[in-house]
């Protein structure tokens, strides 16, 4: 498998001609994915397109920000505005886009290494800021693109090319961390439970606030432990009786490990959005559309006279 992306080109140019008809799956067709057959990413991509179409979101209304990794290539395999930046640096870009244009739907797509490893500090800061950015983490518990090294979510003991004695660090639990950080919405999904994942994506997109959607995704090439079958057997949708606004209950669920790993909406806290706290943009036109004139600022020179 190549360490780098494929050569296929996407169709480009103008979007659909007919207004008001709503988007179709076709409108979201991008480059042909260079992922391995059987990779969980392919299912996530499929579900994503269905969710967008069902929600009536046009490609140009979306801005996908990604970093580097197999998950980072996601935006190229669909069609929408895209900033595909650096490994781990997805969230700063995504948040700033939102500050500059809060009319834009911004989704950050990352891998577990990308977001929890290289970008860990940004993940913490983003949960605190609570801008209206949606974060999809394709969590295959391994580094895919660089060929199978351990990620922060890899189980202890897993032997890899760079962890010959098995992983010696305790794995990180992103969902529990997010609850601890009072992340506005904390959701876990599994690429194989497509119907559930689609509904979760819609919930995430409709939420007002920073939302983590940690998606278990099987890597057929480098993770022989957490296979499709393994996830299928271990993922356990949260029941109707779970109240996601009950933080203690959410913690208990988030800490569940071993045999039963809960999927679904784990935690929700409708915290004030940062966009509504920045006076310059709160309830105003997005920054990008606010007029500028040199005359308005010229007066600032006066106090230096």
């Amino acid at each position, binding site marked *: 498998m190549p360490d780098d992306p494929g050569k296929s*080109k996407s169709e*480009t140019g103008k979007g659909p001609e007919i207004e008001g008809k709503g988007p179709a799956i076709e409108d979201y067709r991008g480059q042909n994915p260079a992922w391995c057959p059987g990779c969980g990413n392919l299912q996530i991509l499929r579900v994503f397109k269905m969710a967008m179409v069902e929600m009536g979101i046009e490609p140009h209304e979306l801005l996908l920000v990604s970093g580097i990794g197999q998950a980072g290539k996601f935006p190229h395999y669909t069609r929408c505005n895209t900033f595909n930046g650096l490994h781990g640096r997805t969230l700063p870009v995504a948040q700033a886009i939102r500050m500059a244009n809060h009319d834009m739907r911004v989704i950050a797509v990352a891998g577990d290494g990308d977001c929890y490893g290289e970008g860990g500090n940004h993940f913490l800061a983003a949960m605190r800021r609570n801008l209206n950015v949606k974060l999809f983490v394709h969590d295959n518990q391994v580094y895919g693109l660089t060929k199978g090294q351990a990620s922060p979510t890899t189980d202890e003991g897993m032997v890899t090319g760079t962890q010959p004695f098995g992983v010696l660090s305790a794995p990180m639990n992103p969902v529990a961390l997010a609850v601890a950080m009072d992340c506005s919405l904390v959701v876990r999904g599994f690429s194989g439970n497509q119907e559930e994942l689609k509904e979760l994506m819609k919930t995430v997109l409709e939420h007002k606030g920073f939302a983590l959607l940690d998606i278990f995704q099987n890597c057929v090439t480098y993770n022989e432990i957490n296979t499709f079958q393994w996830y299928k057997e271990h993922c356990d949708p949260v029941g109707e009786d779970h109240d996601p606004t009950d933080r203690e209950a959410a913690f208990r669920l988030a800490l569940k490990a071993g045999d039963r790993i809960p999927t679904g909406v784990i935690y929700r806290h409708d915290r004030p959005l940062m966009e509504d706290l920045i006076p310059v943009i709160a309830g105003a036109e997005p920054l990008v559309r606010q007029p500028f004139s040199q005359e308005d*600022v*010229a007066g600032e020179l006066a106090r230096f006279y």
Partner: protein
Amino acid sequence: MDYTIRIGGQAGQGLQTIGAVLGKLFTRSGFQVFTHQDYMSRIRGGHNYYQVRFADHPVSSSRSQVDILVALDKVTVAEHQDEMAPGGIIIYDSETVKEKYEGEMFLDVPARKIAMDTAGNRLMENTVDVGAILGMLGLGLEQLEKLLEETFLRKGREIVDQNVAAARAGSDYARENCGQCAFTVPADASGDGPPARRMLLDGTSAVGLGALTSGCRFYSAYPMTPSTGVFTFMASQAKKHSLVVEQAEDEIAAINMALGASFAGVRAMTGTAGGGFALMVEGLSLAGMTETPVVIYVGQRPAPATGLPTRTEQGDLLYVLHAAHGEFPRVIMAPGTPEQAFYLTGKAFDLAEKYQIPAFIISDQYLADTEWSLDGLDPSRIEYHDYRLRAADLEKLDDYKRHAYTDTGVSPLAEPGASRHLVVTDSDEHDEDGHIIEDAETRTRMVEKRLLKKMPLIREEISPPLLYGDDSARTIICGWGSTYGVMKEAVDDIGGAGGIAMLHFSEVYPFPGTSKFDYLALLGRAKRTICIENNATSQFAQLMRAETGFQFSDHINKFDGRPFLLDELLAKLKALEKSHA
């Protein structure tokens, strides 16, 4: 007439208040003013000073000799006593300093007692001192009274009146008690009458004003001295002028945020010092690949690592020039004065967006903190043009490609979401649509577009160096950035008779060509060419040699974390002259 007042003491004792008031006061009184600060890396205590030089002729540097020393503590007396000019006076308050000094040089001004007697408020001590200085100089108080009113009226009329009373008492005290004060100022600059319409501006505010005037809408940074001043300035303007100013979690986030905001369609800037810039380097390369405009302010301070946090050095020129992996164009502005800082910040924004590249403003602690008097600034001289394709224009296009090949290498920069056209970019090599590619042909064309086609056009935009002095001078001193002021005064001081001129570079990359001004011919005619730099390895001279093949005959370097003072530079130039004689 040319006097230097140095106020020394511990951080937190109010020396900045005194210095700032004096600087403004003298500027309004029609003098030419230059101030600089020397402080330690601590919030309270330590030894710091604020130096105000004012004259009836242009001044642009600090001298080491002091005419009036305001000693707010004993250390100041011990540290600076030997630097007093003939006839210089040290004022101090024996009650607060807890020491009584004997001798003609000392004037004990009981500032605390006067403040209590006149205003019943110890906080007015600093105002008493300012009044005393004006009294010693024989200057009137009208300008000061206006300034006190401007500063304190929002706190109430009573505070204004108390301050005025304290200043008067200080002035009266000095006039009565400083028998040996022999300072004279020209009659037309008495401190009375209408204020002169002049500015007093520091390097930090100049960069901030330049950014504001350039339409900067987004500033993200992580605090690091000496760049924090610009960050604070921008934050202070946020509400009034619709800026989003965000303190990022680190410098990596800061530059990536600036890129995100810029991609979304607003002008964006970040700022840092060397250590923080080290973290930004990956993001700088991202700006290069995605052709996202960004302005980066680098306030240099001595390094390596965290170096001397509050001191000055020109040690990062080659770093800023070479930082980042890969090859892409960039612009580097190195202003030498607050005035240049204002206009060059404007130019950095314009070029960044016009060519979709990163543009740097490199300054240093010295320029950031020095204040200069100047006649004024003209905001309309800052080019403001929105180069982006917005809604209506974008909608009209049949086809849009973010990275389309063009004759100039500059592709249309569109606002994402403003129309049905998609805006796509990538840190991987990409095609015209912004999608990932690997083929050799596209890679070659993209490098040609991004780098080779743009570079000559960008070079054309760069202004030649500034010549100060006679173009047939036998000796030419050469420098860049913040050494401008001291070099200029050295030329003034040595004078035409000495056959010395200055060549100053403030737009250092792309390196200026010679078609507009053949500075290489000028240097070639000179007998001696001296490159003056606030670093140890003559980085500018290295750049000059690499770009033009020209080699300076001599170098003067200073790298103790302090700026060049005028007398010191003059002495070094003289020593050099002798050694060659």
